[in-house]
């Protein structure tokens, strides 16, 4: 408690954390339910005969059960790459925290859903076409100017030639 600026605010536990805690709690409570008392009570005759052995068997039972369960959980986490997915999902949820409206969900109709997926590509294509069209129009405008100038030049040459012709007649 105390300190310079007070204790740091604890972030809400992430999914990975909750997952681990929930599994641990399950095991704890299960072992608590299957207590040694209960075990010895069920195996009363044997317990009376061999109390230390009963204790030893029980301990091994609990230990082995916990190990197997923890291993299974780890396998599920590894196979599904859950650690990474949990952290990733936590981030995604955090980013959407200020948003209240329900988000988009697949409609179940592929033709409908694919439209939006294609739109960004179409928009890119459209802006590309607009650009090259403009460039082409500009290019043609310049060439058209040259063509008109060329026609003028030819007319001019023809006139000069006519003038020379007349001079020789």
């Amino acid at each position: 408690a105390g300190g310079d600026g007070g204790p740091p605010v604890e972030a809400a536990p992430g999914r990975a954390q909750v997952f681990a805690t929930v599994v641990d709690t399950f095991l704890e409570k299960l072992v608590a339910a299957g207590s040694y008392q209960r075990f010895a009570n069920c195996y009363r005759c044997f317990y009376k005969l061999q109390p230390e052995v009963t204790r030893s068997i029980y301990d091994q039972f609990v230990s082995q059960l916990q190990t197997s369960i923890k291993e299974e959980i780890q396998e599920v986490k590894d196979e599904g790459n859950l650690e990474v997915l949990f952290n990733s999902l936590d981030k995604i949820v955090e980013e959407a925290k200020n948003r209240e409206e329900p988000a988009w969900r697949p409609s179940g109709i592929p033709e409908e859903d694919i439209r939006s997926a294609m739109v960004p590509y179409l928009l890119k294509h459209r802006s590309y076409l607009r650009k090259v069209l403009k460039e082409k129009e500009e290019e043609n405008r310049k060439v058209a100017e040259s063509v008109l100038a060329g026609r003028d030049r030819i007319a001019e040459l023809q006139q000069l030639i006519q003038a020379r012709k007349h001079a020789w007649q």
Partner: protein
Amino acid sequence: MSVNPMAYEAQFFGFTPQTCMLRVYIAFQDYLFEMMLVVESVILKKLDGFPGCKISPFQIRKSTEKFLLFMKEHFDKLFSKMEEVLLQLVLNIPKNVVLPEDKVHEQYPYTKEQFQALQDEIRQLQQQYRAEASAGQALRAELEEQKAVQAELEKILQWFDGLDNICREHGTSNFKESFAFLTQNSKKLQDVLKDVEEKSKKIKKHDQLL
């Protein structure tokens, strides 16, 4: 009660959360049963070391069943609670969250008509571009033709200039005028010749008649 298929979660995780829970449940349950069998067989083995005792395997089996039943009840209850928490808090995607790969659908909610309009616009732009491209080709073709024509015309001009230079070099500056005079005179001569021919024809005819 409708079952939530958790399809969106399945899209993210690559498995359906409920399936995952089921797999885990079955695995845990199997371990529990396995452990109990091991416990039972160990106890039975220990009993073999006590030939005089009155405990029968049947009693041991009864004890095992009793303990297992008890464990199973608690196991089911505890697992059910765990499953609920996991499905609600861990293996779920809140309603207000859209996955990054689906962001486009919120950014570009195009209706069928809007989409069609966009496609039409693109088609039109493509046509316009094609038209501009062929117009450009035609213009460039004319430019090439013009070059050839200009070259020819300039050659002719040069030829005329050549003539002028020859005249100047040989000091006959009114060669042009005399040439022009000549061409006019030869034209006049031709006209006169024609006249004379016609007149002589008339005279001959007149003579014949006489």
